[in-house]
């Protein structure tokens, strides 16, 4: 799946400056960076390109996988593949943060960010947040608008719980994407390869297309470290008629594994900044 190759726009809006000598808090940095993310979102999509171009493509991706059920002549497979893909599309979009993280390097702002007094990791946590609402929205349209046409129906309670589960899953998978982005910052030309290979691997092992139990033990263990495995379990439980209580445990695991990935991403960005300061490679091309 190709990357959206839009140059990063300049940040809009004013950012309050910290008083001299005081390091800005991570929260304030995330908030400032998220304004850049919002400006990016407005540049990348217009209402028309999002709804006709992007959403249309995503809905067809979900349908493409669902109709494998027609080939298999298996209604259960159709539903399974549909639900898996409908949640997966949120992750696909969240993984665009691997590429958008590197935009700071291509626009020449990375050196300034590294030399700024605040920590580097909150900048990257905030500057690619735009993909989460877009991803959750496309996933929501697939699950709750397209789903009923394929016979996948929801009660109001299940739909609300599923929507929240997709939101948490997308947020937690953002941690996974940022961890990869921290590595890709050292070789930005690999951003699209890493992003696409990684989300296809996620699709393969987390139960999107075949149950996790299909895989050898070590792959299953790897899948358990990915929030998608747990989030998708929760959505499937809700779709199968389980009450909101059915998602408690999957949500907890999605949250815990996501927190672990965010910690890893923060470490990765910090190490990248320190290494760059040490050897002066922050702004050098590959």
């Amino acid at each position, binding site marked *: 799946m190709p990357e959206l190759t839009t140059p990063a726009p300049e940040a809009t809006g004013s950012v309050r400056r910290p008083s001299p000598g005081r390091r800005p808090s991570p929260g304030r940095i995330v908030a400032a960076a998220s304004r850049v993310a919002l400006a990016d979102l407005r540049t990348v999509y217009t209402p028309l390109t999002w709804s006709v171009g992007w959403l249309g493509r995503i809905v067809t991706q979900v349908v493409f996988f669902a109709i494998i059920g027609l080939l298999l002549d298996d209604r259960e497979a159709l539903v399974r593949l549909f639900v898996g893909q409908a949640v997966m599309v949120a992750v696909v979009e969240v993984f665009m943060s691997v590429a958008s993280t590197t935009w700071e390097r291509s626009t020449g702002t990375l050196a300034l960010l590294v030399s700024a007094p605040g920590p580097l990791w909150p900048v990257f946590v905030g500057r690619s947040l735009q993909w989460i609402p877009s991803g959750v929205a496309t996933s929501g349209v697939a699950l709750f608008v397209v789903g009923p046409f394929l016979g996948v129906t929801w009660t109001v309670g299940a739909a609300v719980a599923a929507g929240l589960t997709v939101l948490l899953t997308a947020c937690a998978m953002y941690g996974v994407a940022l961890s990869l982005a921290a590595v890709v910052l050292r070789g930005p030309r690999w951003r699209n390869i890493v992003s696409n290979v990684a989300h296809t*691997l996620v699709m393969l092992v987390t139960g999107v297309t*075949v149950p996790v139990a299909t895989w050898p033990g070590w792959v299953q263990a790897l899948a358990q470290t990915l929030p998608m495995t747990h989030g998708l379990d929760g959505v499937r439980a809700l779709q199968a008629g389980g009450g909101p209580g059915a998602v408690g445990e999957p949500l907890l695991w999605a949250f815990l594994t996501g927190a672990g990935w965010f910690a890893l991403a923060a470490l990765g960005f910090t190490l990248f900044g320190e290494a760059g300061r040490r050897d002066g490679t922050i702004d050098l091309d590959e």
Partner: protein
Amino acid sequence: MSVVRTVATGVVVQLRQMRGTPDWFLALFTAPLTTAVFVTIFLHAGRGDLTAYGVLAPALIALWQMSLQTAGELIAKDRENGSLEALLAAPAPFAALLGGRVLAVVAVSLVAFAEAWAVGWALTGSPVDVAHPWVFLLVLGLTALAMTGWAGVMACVFVLARSARTFQNSLSYPFYVLGGVLVPVSLLPTWVEWPSRLVFLSWSSDLLRDALAAGPVVGLGARLAAVVGLGAAGYVVAHGLLGRTLQRVRRTGSLAHA
């Protein structure tokens, strides 16, 4: 400079440009994984007989991705890096050079067929047989040529309508459904099947699947004619659009403006 020599130059130039730029090969990185996705779905469903479908689809997806999406950007990239003016001013025919470059991308994308076949073999323990190898190679060649023509169309569209690039991401899955790359269009509702028959890929996909199967390939001539006809339409449209595109950028003086 002869047309053939210009085409060959285009091929060489493109291969040189691709070297060292991983993005050009994105589809070749993902094709083995996509093969694993499809084949494991079929194995899990106890339908090992559909392995050929799971092997063919990622290869066709790679061919489509690299041809229409990547090659379709060629003129736009020339414009961005400032080489378009020099290429148009040169005595060699620009269309032949562009054709050669697109052909290089399409040829490289065919590597995905070998990748998908190897992954299918690794996952199932036995290679997918090609029951009608000559039909397979003939259809594959015609499909690659048809792709080249339509990639030329995309190259012009991206220049004529800059907003088209915004919709570039949308050129994938809708065409994978309409092109029947994994699920034959005959299994889809009639209102989807009819427009899909205007997409040359739907004829190619069906023919390639039949070439892998043991049974006879029914109606080969007419189906090949459909691939050739729809592919030729791409060349006709590309030729017309290229002339119009170049005329427009010359008239408006926007040749070098990306």
